[in-house]
Structure formats: C-alpha cells, structure tokens
C-alpha cells in the first residue's frame, strides 16, 4: 500500500531469487561450525554450576597433564584491559565487563559463566578433560529478580558498583542498580488531576532468548607472528575485530575476522563469547582451534534479553491521552547494560503525550549478561503501555484503532527525548490495519477475542562501506561487508542494479572479511537495507560519474554533454552517440583502466518504523491454551526493496512475539538454575502452533534514503505481546499482566487458583 506517487522502479519491488539461495537449499553454504581447516582441533568450556560464587582457586594441572589436552586457559591468560568502553554498534560495554564475562575473574556471576577452556585432540576428549579442572567455589546467595536485586539488603554482585543517578552523581552506597535515568515533560500532576479517567497497572516479564537455531561458534588461528584469523558466525565482523583487539590487546590490523554464514542472530550474535577463548587456546597450542556451544550453553551463557518489572499510569481526557507516568526496571544480567532506555524511549513514540515522567532502572542480577534482542527493550515496554492504552480506549468508549489514530504522533511531534519526529507513517499504518479484511471481519464464537497494538522502533544508520568493480562484460562485482542473515545480498544487489540501470542478475554480491572491505557496522538495528543500501547507491553514482567521463573521452566532448539514463550513456545533442553500460564496460582498458565505484557512508537519516497488529485468539478455559486464530501485521517499510524478504521479517518477528507472549521464559529455581534450558521445555512456536501470518506493507517513503527505504527487521516484534494480551482480555474479560501467558497461568488466573 503506497501513500505517494511511487517512482517506476525497474528492480526495486520485484522478488528475484537471492544470490546465496542455491547454496543454502543444497546444504553447501558454510556456516561457522562448518569450517574445516588443516590441523584443526576442538575445544570445550568449563562453566560455573553456581549462579553466584567467589572463585577461590582454579587448578588446571591435572587437565594439562592429560595426553589428549593441548591447551588450557583461564582469565589469568587474558591481558589486563584498558579502562574504556567498546562501541559494538549495539550499545556500549565496558571492556573490563566484557573481559570478565568471557572468562570469570574472582567471581562467577551466573550459572554457565565461563571459568576455563581447553583444546584437545577431539571434541569428546576436550569435554572429558573439563572434569579434570578443579575449581574451588564459595557459593553465595543469588539475586534472581529486579525486585529482589533492588532491596536494601540484597546480596551484591559487585561491591564496588554504585548507581549512576539521573543528575549524573553516583549513589553513596553500593547497589545492584547500575543506573537510574529519567525523562520528564509538561505538568504530570495537573494532567492526572484533570483527567476523565486514569488507569494504572503493574507488569512483569521474564528473561527470554533470541532462539536462533544455530548455536554460537568460533574458530581461531593464532600465528607465531601475532596475526590472528577468526572465523565466526557473527552479525558484525568489524565489531568482533574491535572487541578482540580490546580484549587481547592486539592492534586491529593484526586481526582478520571472516564472517561465515550465520544461522540467526536477532542481536544475540553481536557480542563475543567463544572467539577470544579459541584465540587464546590457539596461541597456546599453535594449532587452529574450534569451539562450538551446545544448546544448554546457548541458553545459560550467551545474551538473552531482560525480564523486568514495570509500573504504568496513564490518563485520558476527551479522548486524548494527557499523561503517562511509567517506571521500568529491567534485568541487565551479570553486568550493566539492559535495554531499559530504548524501551523507555520507544513506548510512547507512537503517540503525542504532553505530560510524562519515565523512570528507567538498569539492574544487575545473577543471570547471563543480556544482549540485544530485536528492538531491545521495546516489546517489554509496549506490553505495559499498549495494554494501558487499550484500557484507556475502553474508558473513552473508543475503538482501539480510532483511539490510537486520534492520539498518533506525526511529523513534528516530539518524543520524550525532545527530538521531533521526521516524516513517519503511524497514521497510515493504523489506517491499513483498520481497513484490512481481518479488522473488518467480525469475530464470533465463545472464548474468542480480538486485540490490537502499535509498535515503534527507531532503526539505526551507522557506517557502511562498499566497493563495486565493473567487469569487462558489463557485470558488476559488489564487495560489501554486511553479514547476510535474511536476504540482504539480494536487497543490496537490487539497489545497485536499480542505480546503474542494469539487470539484477548482472550484480554479484560478496560479503567480505575485515581485510577485504572497508568498515561496516553490524547487520542489526534494521540498518542494512537502509545504510548499506545508501553506500551501494553512492558506489553506483560513483560509477556513473566515471562512465560519463569515459564516454566524454571517447566521444571527444565535454562531460556536461553526456548523461547516464536507464543504464545507457547518451550524448546531449547527437542521438547516434549511445553506449550501453556493458559496451562502455568493455572499453575499460582504453578509457582509463579498471573501473571501480566506492561508497562509504555514515547514514544519518534512518526512517523510523511503525507496526500495527491485529490478532484474534481463542482461549480454552479448561486447559488455558491460547490459539492464534488469525494474525495481521501492517507495517511501514518506506519502500520495500524485496517485498518477500520484507514480509519474511514481519512474519518472523511476529512469531517470536507470539512465543514470548504465550510460552517462552527462563524458568529459574531458587538456586539460579534455568530448569528449561532445552528446546523441549523452552517452548518456541512450531509450524503447528500458527496460522498463516498476513502482511500489509505500507509505504511511506523515508526522505533520508534515495529509494525511501526504512528498516523493517525489528518493529514486528514490538506489538505482539500487548496485542495478544489485549485479545485475551477481549476473550475472557481478564487482563494478564505477567508473561508468559502460558496455559498454566491462564488456568490459575481465570480460576483464581493463586
């Protein structure tokens, strides 16, 4: 659904087959664990069984003495890091926190925290060798929820940690609250006093995992001259390189990171876990070392996203949301850095609310250090705000979509940060959802209900760098550095083909390693089609300029007399003088030599994205099972470069949200052990749990991109938690404020069993 006169694109908007597709459907594509090198050995990681413990000593001598063991490392083998923060593109982390997370120092801070690593003659031997490492732990009481962590008498993860407060000062005493931030505007008390209705609730969400099917891996070869090559499944080879450089105290130029194909990331494969261990082991034994995680380690020792506690109070007057007071406390895991700020900034962004106060608390607990998960923080915050908005709409006797439309943010509306929205598409997206066949159809039958919710994500810009080499036959090799997780090779090839006026099949994209292409920030933040697309566009323009000069040279005229139109060079006044792209490409040698275009951008205007979801559910009052009957997602994509992959992002994000809403959680016992650390009991949706997911692509072009592209990957996961809760409320009259809304919770709450 386009909202403006859309240019007649030739390639953009079509659905070609992705260039890496055949290798992926035949099993030939190489993912990180598929790397086979000469003399490769395997390793294993010893992990803390305790959620919180002092590590008094580690004795590796027995392991080192085993004939099959080639190397053993602990935190003592890591160099001391600088007192600095590393910008990974997913936020900033202290280098010291990263170093201590990779291998525990004097404390184990979560069950699964890496304590030592070994390399041995086989993967089985490496696992067996872990038993020979003796660790002397002094178990400590663990803190397992934000509320427990924030109590005055809570055990402390770090006795030196004090709370960074809104005014910038540090708290007097130590705390598990790493930071407290606040946003304020308008006159909150007056607005509440004057309201027609006020709704107020508390919400609880649980830690959940991105759930990518491919576990983490890392293969490293350390040469005697101190050069290091790392093969890994990562969302960002340059981020990995920067982190390794900090942790291992190596110059960046000594490290080459080769991004292999990646089996899902969703933000969880930006941080590093195994790569530094593989590097240290390789240095010690002089052979390339490969480490892979098993699924239990993935759950316990990578970067899930925060659970947390939220309190929200909203007011309405004359159908207008006049006040919002929200407090969010998110689990950061063992080290600071939850996405509570992002959640705080997104949750009111679909609306124009004049009076607000938002408090955001970043709280450490004895759980794995959280990492980004698709619009980090926003789904949790939306679970709170979008349900309160649903209640306000009911109080105001308004249709929930009409209520959102009435209160919608638009271009110029200021977010709680004070920043004004540029051109955005919330209103258009609401309209698309409202006009959908789904929303226009009645919902009938007992125990059935319908819910809607809006969602927002900023989308990122950041840096991308590409080179495009024109071949003498008129085809083009595009060298880029964005890991392809969901079809970006195709999207970037399409954007270059569009820019050059050549067929899509004539562009051959390659994702290169860190030695072979300029800096590229992560494939994440919904940035790749937007920012790498912009770099590709610049490279295309660069080629056009050079072609114009070369044609002018051939035709012995001025460059101003030559234009590049529809993939052809044309002379301004002589209609006989024409050259196709391929013809001029064939004359490279005699017109100046090898022809390359370069695009290097800092993309500054990503278009924010809105999604509006409609879901119908049926709730079985006896078993508590919630069935998704029908799901429609409307989302503003700006311009959909490859509609099938845009739809795929929408559907995938929705289904992750469905799992998060209905079943997924880290289920901890009181000792801090995750009791459901397998795909059997960490219950993600299967094909049998779902209907088809209907998608409506809205196109409000982003003025900041040459083709109007907005990021699409993250916003789809923001609305489902609230949309489903709203639907369940519509079906049962009961509002669920704690996730997941599992069958057990439904039965317990509907039948007042708790």
């Amino acid at each position: 659904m386009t909202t403006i006169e859309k240019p007649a694109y030739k390639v953009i908007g079509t659905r070609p087959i992705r260039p890496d597709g055949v290798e992926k459907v035949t099993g030939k594509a190489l993912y990180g664990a598929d790397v086979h090198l000469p003399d490769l050995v395997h390793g294993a990681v010893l992990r803390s069984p305790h959620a919180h413990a002092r590590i008094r000593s580690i004795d590796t001598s027995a392991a080192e003495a085993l004939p099959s063991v080639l190397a053993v490392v602990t935190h003592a083998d890591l160099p001391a890091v600088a007192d600095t923060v590393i910008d990974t593109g997913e936020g900033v982390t202290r280098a010291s926190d990263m170093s201590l997370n990779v291998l525990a120092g004097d404390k184990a801070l979560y069950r699964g925290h890496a304590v030592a690593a070994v390399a041995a003659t086989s993967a089985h031997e490496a696992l067996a060798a872990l038993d020979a490492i003796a660790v002397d732990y002094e178990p400590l009481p663990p803190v397992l929820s934000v509320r427990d962590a924030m109590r005055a008498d809570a055990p402390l993860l770090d006795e030196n940690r004090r709370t960074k407060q809104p005014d910038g000062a540090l708290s007097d005493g130590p705390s598990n609250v790493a930071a407290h931030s606040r946003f304020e505007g308008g006159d909150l008390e007056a607005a509440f006093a004057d309201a027609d209705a006020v709704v107020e609730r508390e919400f609880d969400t649980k830690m959940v995992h991105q759930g990518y099917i491919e576990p983490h891996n890392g293969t490293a070869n350390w040469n005697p001259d101190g050069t290091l090559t790392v093969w890994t499944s990562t969302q960002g080879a340059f981020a990995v390189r920067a982190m390794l450089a900090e942790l291992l105290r190596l110059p960046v130029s000594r490290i080459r990171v080769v991004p292999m194909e990646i089996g899902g990331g969703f933000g969880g494969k930006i941080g590093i876990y195994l790569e530094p261990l593989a590097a240290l082991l390789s240095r010690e034994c002089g052979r390339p070392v490969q480490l892979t995680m098993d699924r239990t380690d993935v759950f316990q020792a990578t970067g899930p996203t925060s659970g947390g506690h939220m309190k929200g109070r909203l007011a309405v007057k004359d159908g207008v949301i006049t006040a919002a007071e929200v407090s969010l406390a998110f689990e950061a895991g063992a080290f600071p850095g939850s996405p509570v700020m992002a959640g705080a900034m997104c949750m009111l962004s679909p609306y124009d609310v004049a009076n607000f106060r938002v408090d955001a608390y970043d709280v450490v607990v004895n759980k794995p250090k959280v990492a980004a998960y698709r619009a980090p923080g926003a789904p949790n915050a939306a679970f709170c705000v979008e349900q309160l908005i649903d209640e306000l709409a009911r109080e105001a006797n308004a249709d929930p979509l009409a209520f959102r439309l009435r209160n919608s943010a638009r271009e110029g509306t200021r977010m709680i940060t004070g920043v004004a929205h540029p051109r955005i598409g919330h209103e258009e997206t609401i309209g698309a959802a409202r006009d959908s066949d789904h929303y226009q159809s009645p919902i009938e039958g007992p125990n059935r209900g319908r819910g809607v919710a809006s969602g927002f994500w900023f989308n990122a810009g950041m840096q991308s760098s590409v080179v495009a080499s024109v071949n003498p036959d008129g085809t083009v090799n595009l060298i880029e550095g964005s890991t392809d997780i969901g079809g970006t090779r195709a999207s970037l090839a399409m954007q270059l083909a569009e820019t050059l006026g050549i067929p899509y099949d004539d562009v051959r994209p390659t994702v290169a390693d860190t030695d072979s292409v300029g800096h590229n920030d992560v494939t994440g933040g919904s940035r790749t089609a937007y920012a790498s697309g912009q770099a590709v566009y610049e490279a295309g323009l660069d080629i056009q300029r050079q072609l114009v000069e070369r044609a002018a040279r051939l035709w012995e005229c001025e460059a101003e007399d030559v234009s590049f139109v529809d993939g052809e060079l044309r002379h301004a006044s002589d209609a006989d003088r024409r050259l196709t792209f391929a013809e001029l490409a064939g004359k490279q040698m005699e017109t100046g030599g090898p022809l390359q275009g370069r695009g290097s951008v800092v993309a500054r205007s990503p278009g924010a994205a809105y999604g509006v979801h409609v879901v119908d559910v049926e709730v079985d009052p006896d078993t508590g099972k919630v069935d998704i009957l029908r799901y429609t997602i409307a989302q503003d994509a700006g311009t959909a470069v490859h509609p099938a992959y845009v739809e795929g992002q929408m559907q995938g994000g929705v289904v992750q949200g469905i799992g998060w809403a209905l079943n997924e959680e880290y289920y901890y016992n009181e000792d801090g052990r995750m009791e459901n650390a397998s795909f059997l009991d960490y219950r993600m949706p299967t094909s049998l749990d779902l209907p088809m997911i209907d998608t409506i692509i809205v196109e409000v072009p982003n003025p900041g991109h040459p083709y109007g592209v907005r990021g699409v990957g993250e916003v789809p996961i923001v609305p489902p938690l609230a949309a489903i809760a709203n639907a369940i409320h519509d079906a049962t009259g009961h509002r669920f404020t704690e996730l997941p809304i599992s069958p057990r919770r439904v039965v317990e709450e509907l039948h007042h069993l708790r």
Partner: protein
Amino acid sequence: MATVIVPSPLRPLCEGAATVEAAGATLGELLRAVDAICPGFWERTVEDGRVRPELSIALNGHAHRYGLSEPIAPRDEVAIVPALGGGR
C-alpha cells in the same frame, strides 16, 4: 542561534529550562556556549574530546555519534539523547 534541547537530567544545570538558545559554528563550540549559560553542561556531555559514549546527538532529528567538529547552522536543533543500539 541554534536550539539545544536539554534532557531532563541536565535541566537542573539550566535552572529547569527544557531548551537553551546558543551560538556555535561547530557542535563543540555550541556545547561550550551552553556550558557558559549552564555551568557543568560540558562536563556532563563531553569526555576526552568527544561526546560521551553513552550519549548521542540528534541533529535536526537525526541521532548519530557526531564529532565535536560537526558544523552547526543557525536554526539547527540539537538534542542530547541516550545512545542506543539494535538487535534484529
């Protein structure tokens, strides 16, 4: 004169003001000018010659890690926001 949007935590430095008008040809000059009006502002926003890593600058609505040498035009709007990342 450019408009600087003051985030809630820093408003006490500006006697509660939510926006401040100041002049500067670059981001660095602008922040210095704001510091003259709101003492302590520079220290809270700049460290080691660059914007603090936990902050982003939104220039006319576009958030990014601008350098202090970024040119500022009259009537530009500069907001100071928390730095963020993404997942996907």
